[in-house]
């Protein structure tokens, strides 16, 4: 059978057509922060259906971790792009033509666009109050009343001041990461339909059950009255999570009494969800022999105008910040901060790219001060089997040193380290988390999987089907995996954090065992991982299972133009066991290439709260021409090991490996992306210091 991806037969949410369906476009605020004084849609032709504030006043606020977002912004808009109305018409063009006919009066308010500034006492408040809850709020929220901080996460381990008193060398640095856009080739798309009080939504989403919960909450329905079908996605990388355009589609469909489809124009992707910009300050101390004694990290994650899963991102940014090292005294404060920028949320790496950038750059700065080789410094302190992390959890199946050594070998670390850099990453997997799958035997000897795992190109359905075939002892062609439909699949936390192959793989073993034991036609398996962290002390279990990897880069800097050319990029990733070889390779290569974009040029640029590069020409994503001369990797396997998800691990270590390689030439960069102008400025500084 020809793969539909090569025959042109792939279908995504944007392709779905329902009888009588209308097409929607969204009216957005031009101001980053303003009161809405009046909204007049009377000029819109009667052939269109317009969604105005009065149509949504009965709908509750939604939000996966903090309920702070309305279907439309009512009295106040909080970012340039906040939806204030929507139009549905027979064609997208007709809906588009009606947008300027919606007349809105605004009164502009002071706004804030930087997380550190926004966390201060005098900053304008983006939200007066918001309520936390829901299945995706898997930890206690710690909003800081009277400020824009919607969550504060802390780690308190040992006594950090005593630790610094023991230190003979201390480095202190502040690092920044720009926002980034997921830029999936397929934009956000969904279709909503109401039938007899049942809300049905077909959407490209990684989180069908979270979308169901939030829509049910907003529309005041029992969850069983909302059906969410997750269609295969043309890429997502975290963007197609939780409620994006689904609530507007549902509200419009309710008013129109017809199905309504939303497909976002490309430019509106930047107004819907980006990656958290972050400012991270690191203070790191060691004895002169290189033994780490204390680390203090402060993270400010800019979550934009609505929290989305920002609290979770800030928490993971915080708990990954100490890095995979034995440090007796650790102090972390990580703040999730509202600003008047478009919302930021899940993005491949989930906060851990940002803290890995800061921590791994700081470690090289420390190595430089100590006069110790950065590889030696890492190996001297790296977590090993049975060590306890600063959260108190005991680490198992620990492979950091192995990853690091493999990465160093790949670039010939000991043959001269000019232009070479290394870095390590520890990345948590969603904890706590639940997964379940049902295996149904068909009359023709085939099997159907009822499973919520979403397909976005990462090959999860292929991997899970291969595992099912192995458990069932049948050829993979005998296993079918239909699109996840919340009406028929058992509950699953969501397809995020590189958890699905690992979690569903274990649930499958249970399901097949149950199928055999019952002698029936259906077996259901469920697994549940417990854990979580106290947000005030950071103690507990951050992750039942750590993703581990290292990156190595070899670069050349053109000091005339400031251009960084990567001649060799290598990652060494602990896979445990590879289930689907081509999928594992593709996810690793894709993560590395995305990491390269993050390292060198990807940046959501804004001026006065307006995104100024919201198109794929001004916002560059890596193309063929950007590939390193050599792109190589090791997927490390061990007999009997657990499956380790590979969806993200190879991204976070790439920017610091490149940054450390650049630093080996005396060019110290603190901010991502490492643009030619920053390289030139830093190179000039280097020359200045020499003089």
């Amino acid at each position: 059978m020809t793969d539909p991806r090569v025959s042109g037969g792939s279908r995504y949410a944007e392709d779905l057509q329902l009888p009588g369906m209308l097409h929607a476009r969204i009216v957005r605020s031009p101001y980053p922060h303003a009161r809405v004084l009046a909204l007049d849609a009377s000029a819109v032709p009667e052939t269109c259906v317009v969604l105005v504030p009065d149509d949504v006043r009965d709908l509750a606020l939604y939000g996966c971790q903090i309920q702070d977002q309305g279907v439309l912004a009512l009295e106040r808009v909080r970012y340039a792009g906040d939806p204030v109305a929507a139009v549905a018409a027979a064609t997208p063009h007709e809906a588009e033509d009606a947008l300027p006919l919606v007349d809105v009066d605004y009164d502009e308010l002071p706004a804030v666009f930087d997380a550190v500034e926004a966390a201060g006492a005098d900053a304008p408040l983006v939200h007066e109050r918001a309520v936390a809850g829901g299945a995706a709020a898997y930890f206690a929220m710690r909003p800081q009343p009277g400020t824009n901080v919607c969550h504060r996460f802390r780690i308190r381990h040992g006594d950090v001041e005593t630790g610094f008193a023991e230190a003979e060398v201390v480095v202190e640095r502040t690092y920044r990461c720009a926002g980034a856009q997921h830029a999936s080739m397929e934009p956000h798309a969904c279709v909503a339909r109401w039938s007899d009080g049942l809300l049905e939504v077909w959407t490209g989403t990684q989180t069908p059950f979270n979308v169901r919960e939030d829509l049910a909450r907003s529309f005041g329905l029992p969850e069983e009255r909302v059906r969410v079908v997750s269609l295969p996605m043309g890429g997502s990388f975290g963007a197609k999570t939780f409620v994006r355009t689904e609530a507007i589609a549902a509200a419009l469909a309710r008013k129109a009494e017809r199905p309504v489809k939303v497909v976002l124009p490309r430019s509106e992707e930047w107004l819907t969800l980006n990656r958290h910009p972050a400012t991270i300050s690191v203070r790191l101390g060691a004895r002169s022999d290189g033994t780490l004694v204390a680390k203090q990290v402060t993270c400010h994650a800019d979550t934009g105008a609505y929290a989305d899963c920002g609290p979770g991102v800030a928490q993971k940014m915080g708990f990954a910040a100490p890095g995979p090292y034995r440090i007796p005294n650790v102090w972390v404060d990580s703040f999730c901060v509202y600003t008047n920028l478009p919302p930021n949320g899940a993005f491949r790496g989930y906060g851990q790219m940002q803290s890995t950038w800061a921590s791994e750059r700081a470690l090289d700065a420390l190595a430089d001060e100590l006069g110790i080789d950065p590889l030696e410094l890492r190996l001297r302190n790296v977590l090993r089997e049975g060590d306890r992390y600063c959260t108190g959890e005991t680490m198992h199946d620990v492979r950091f040193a192995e990853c690091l050594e493999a990465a160093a070998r790949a670039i010939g670390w000991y043959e001269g380290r000019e232009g070479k850099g290394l870095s390590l990453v520890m990345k948590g997997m969603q904890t706590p988390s639940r997964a379940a799958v049902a295996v149904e035997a068909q009359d023709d000897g085939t099997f159907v999987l009822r499973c919520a795992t979403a397909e976005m190109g990462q090959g999860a359905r292929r991997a899970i089907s291969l595992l099912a075939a192995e458990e069932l002892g049948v050829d993979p062609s005998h296993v079918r995996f239909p699109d996840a439909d919340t009406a028929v699949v058992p509950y699953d936390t969501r397809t995020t954090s590189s958890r699905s192959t690992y979690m569903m793989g274990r649930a499958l073993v249970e399901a097949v065992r149950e199928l055999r034991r019952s002698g029936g036609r259906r077996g259901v398996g469920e697994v549940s991982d417990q854990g979580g962290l106290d947000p005030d002390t950071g103690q507990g279990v951050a992750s039942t299972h750590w993703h581990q990897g290292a990156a190595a880069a070899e670069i050349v800097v053109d000091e005339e133009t400031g251009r960084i050319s990567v001649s060799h990029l290598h990652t060494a990733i602990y896979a445990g066991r590879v289930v689907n070889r081509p999928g594992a390779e593709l996810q690793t290569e894709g993560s590395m290439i995305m990491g390269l974009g993050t390292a060198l040029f990807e940046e959501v640029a804004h001026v006065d709260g307006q995104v100024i590069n919201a198109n794929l020409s001004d916002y560059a994503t890596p193309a063929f021409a950007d590939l390193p001369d050599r792109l190589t990797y090791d997927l490390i396997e061990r007999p009997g090991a657990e499956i380790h998800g590979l969806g993200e691990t190879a991204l976070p270590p790439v920017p610091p490996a490149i940054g450390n390689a650049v630093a080996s030439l005396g060019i110290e960069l603190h901010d991502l992306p490492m643009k030619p102008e920053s390289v030139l400025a830093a190179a000039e500084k280097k020359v200045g210091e020499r003089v």
Partner: protein
Amino acid sequence: MRVRVNGFERELDARADESILDVLRRELELLSVREACGIGVCGACTVLLDGEPVSGCLLLAPLAEGREVTTVEGLDGSHPVQQAFADAHAFQCGYCTPGMILTACRLLEESPHPTAAEIRTAMSGNLCRCGSYTKIVDAVLRAAAGPV
């Protein structure tokens, strides 16, 4: 308008101001042609116009009048380039794949045995956000090695 699409003469309804992308999707349900950037920089909507790759989002439909348009549906499904993409696993989400395949088809007509560097240059107008690039280069090399 009259246009030859995937080997068949078609009489299509099209406005003067719409793109061939919109017309192919609406009138013929050729859904492999997809709008990703809308400004001709990503290659996802690539179609062949008289054999030359063009961005479907930029080509005004009337400009295709009397000419031949090929989409990936017009290949037979086991075309050597399609086969090579499948064999090399040269895709993840698959959204950019039709454009990649059509661009590669034209490249191999012009240059039957390209080097990896030539492939990267020739395909530089096609973006893959999943980052399947190295395997796409492998696929094109594989197709070049077989009969095209």
